[in-house]
């Protein structure tokens, strides 16, 4: 008896130490090795099935015109293929809609690092209820779902309970766990299949980890240090309103941007004229222009790139890093080296998603007074 208690204690100690080591490794970006994709998380299938329906259902938005898939479609790499997204109603958004591959393994959500990556339910709630995205009153969403018999059954199967805000968010979060990179050549390469990469891609990998220094930030199993950096990526001209022909659209993006700043309690928000990134979280000047390091898995499916969608191709992204700016030293890469780097980046891309929009069940009449 005494012996087994000791054993338990020592096991607990070892587990605790391992956790510390891992935590230490995560905090040191440059210490992370490139690694295969994170293992799939356990899925509650009934909740994921429900979440998939809700993900595609426009009744989850205030005006029933937008679903999650409106800006995160499997047909466009779980993004929308646009530099800057549309927004709710007649408004327009100020950032690029990121793809959702491996979203359950991120350190932060949102380009500005506003939300904790371990909490899928909260990012879902934020997207559904935020006034520039889906602008949903969750109590109204609840009552809409209760008006659909199939949803009543699916909530019963998933939660043994009726539709309710937290359950809606949790179900969509469960579905998000299923969105993963599938069959990316570089993942196979890391798992031992050396033939998975072309010679050009292998040379690109050497550059990625070597003189191009990409892996200084794009490292670990997510090809991201899970951190925030200011790399001097410009805002998109469509946000800045420099083209008089597009002034009306630009104003609609600026409205959502400054409104967002106001709602985050950002100092001097009426006079800000750029996307200040992580500054809205910390209100510390050193964080102006910092954005989360995106994962590079499936980067071939998620153009355009950067928080502002300002680069339409991987070649443009590479050219940006080569040119350098006041925050990053220029890189000296030959044309062949640039092509090799792009070839490697393309090897990070897996299969196109096979998920398609489900048939959505209709509202049905209920017995009045049996709510």
């Amino acid at each position: 008896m005494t012996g087994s208690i000791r054993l338990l204690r020592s096991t607990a100690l070892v587990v605790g130490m391992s956790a510390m080591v891992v935590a230490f490794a995560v905090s040191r970006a440059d210490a992370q090795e490139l690694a295969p994709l994170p293992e799939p998380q356990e899925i509650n299938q009934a909740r994921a099935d429900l979440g998939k329906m809700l993900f595609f259902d426009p009744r989850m938005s205030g005006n029933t015109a937008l679903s999650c898939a409106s800006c995160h479609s499997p047909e466009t790499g779980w993004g929308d293929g646009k530099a800057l997204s549309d927004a709710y109603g007649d408004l327009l958004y100020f950032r690029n809609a990121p793809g959702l591959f491996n979203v359950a393994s991120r350190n932060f959500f949102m380009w500005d690092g506003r939300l904790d990556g371990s909490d899928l339910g909260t990012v879902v709630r934020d997207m559904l209820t935020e006034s520039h995205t889906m602008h949903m009153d969750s109590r109204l969403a609840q009552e809409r779902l209760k008006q659909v018999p199939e949803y009543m059954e699916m909530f019963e199967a998933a939660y043994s309970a009726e539709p309710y805000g937290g359950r809606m968010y949790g179900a969509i979060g469960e579905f998000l766990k299923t969105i993963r990179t599938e069959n990316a050549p570089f993942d196979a390469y890391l798992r031992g299949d050396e033939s998975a990469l072309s010679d050009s891609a292998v040379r690109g990998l050497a550059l990625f980890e070597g003189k191009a220094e990409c892996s200084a930030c794009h490292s670990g199993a997510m090809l991201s240090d899970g951190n925030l950096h200011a790399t001097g990526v410009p805002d998109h001209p469509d946000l800045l309103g420099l083209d008089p022909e597009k002034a009306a659209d630009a104003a609609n993006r600026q409205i959502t941007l400054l409104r967002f700043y106001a709602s985050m309690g950002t100092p001097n928000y009426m006079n800000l004229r750029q996307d200040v990134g992580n500054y809205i979280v910390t209100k510390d000047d050193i964080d102006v222009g910092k954005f989360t390091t995106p994962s590079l898995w499936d980067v071939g499916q998620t153009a355009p790139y950067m928080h502002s969608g300002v680069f339409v191709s991987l070649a443009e992204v590479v050219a940006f890093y080569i040119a350098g700016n006041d925050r990053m030293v220029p890189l000296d890469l030959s044309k062949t080296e640039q092509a090799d780097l792009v070839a490697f980046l393309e090897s990070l891309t897996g299969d196109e998603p096979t998920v398609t929009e489900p048939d959505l069940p209709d509202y049905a009449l209920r017995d009045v007074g049996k709510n």
Partner: protein
Amino acid sequence: MKKFPAILMGASVFAIATFALAQDSFPPLATLAPPPIPDDNLMSPEKVALGEKLFWDGRLSGNGSMPCSACHLPDLGWGTGGPISFGYPGTKHWRNSQTILNSAYYNKLFWEGSATSLESQAKAAAGGAVAGNGDGSMMEMRLRFVPEYVSDFEEVFGTSWPHLANAWDAIAAYQRTIVTDAAQVPFDRHLAGDITAMSDAAQRGMDLFTGSAGCISCHNGALVSDQRFYNIGVAAAAEFEEDPLYQVTLRWELYQKGVPEDVYRSGDDDLGLYHVTKRPGDKSKFRTPSLRELRWTEPYMHNGAFATLQDVVAFYNAGGGEGQTAGLQPLNLSDDEQADLVVFLEALSMDEPFLADPPELPETATWSEFSK
């Protein structure tokens, strides 16, 4: 059958008692004075002009296209003309859109009296999920990107940027100009001494109204409303049985207004004042509406149950509806008397409807046009 005479007798006694009370103690019908102006929102022509623009401006809604005027159309009596108001896209509403006309005189707004000023009513309607569905901070930022509004708000309110609370002030000021012109109302001309203003039928109807029909016990004073709340037994809207979207809204209203769970679970109709007070005795009570401008503001009741004034009078003549707690009794009016009553009700309206044309709305600009 044995009980029948007793009930009739009881009813007569009650009717007589009501009549006697009416004669003695109800505020008399009168011509409206100018509407009250709150000390913290004084009128000015510039404020009213700004409020007029904002009343028509979809920027004060969630999707940019549901201004106040979407459900308060001048051509439709400043309502929607239908039994139940339009809902925000993807929703249906659940009550009749009340006229804006003379809303300046009410001390509580909405059928359930949940707003205590025009200012707070405008805010609530623009933000309600089945009405304007606007987010406050987003509506405010939309206004700030309109240079004309920036200068209007600065002139009227002295702020460097539009503040949303001031938008509701301006709209309320505008609404205080949407009031009956007594010179155009037969009843008011009659009170002023014009003996030709009301027909004989209207005068007979007025006698019934203030006398044996007992209407004046609730519809009294210059506004022709006591601004109290009664359950007169108007039946639940048929829409709640027929359309899933009305059912969604009915449950949502119960839920979001925080009724106890058993009331939510069994809710089968609009509970009116109960939504505000949660007192069981307040179920199905609604605020007595003004009877001015009825000619232009059909249909009638909180859910638009009655399309015509004849229907309304017939409803009261029968003693109100099932479950009423307002003490209504059958009136036993003849067909001619009912017709006279309708003629009088019509004489409380202006000769022509109060109309207004939409103003020209200002343009949005980019931030490059702001001064820092």
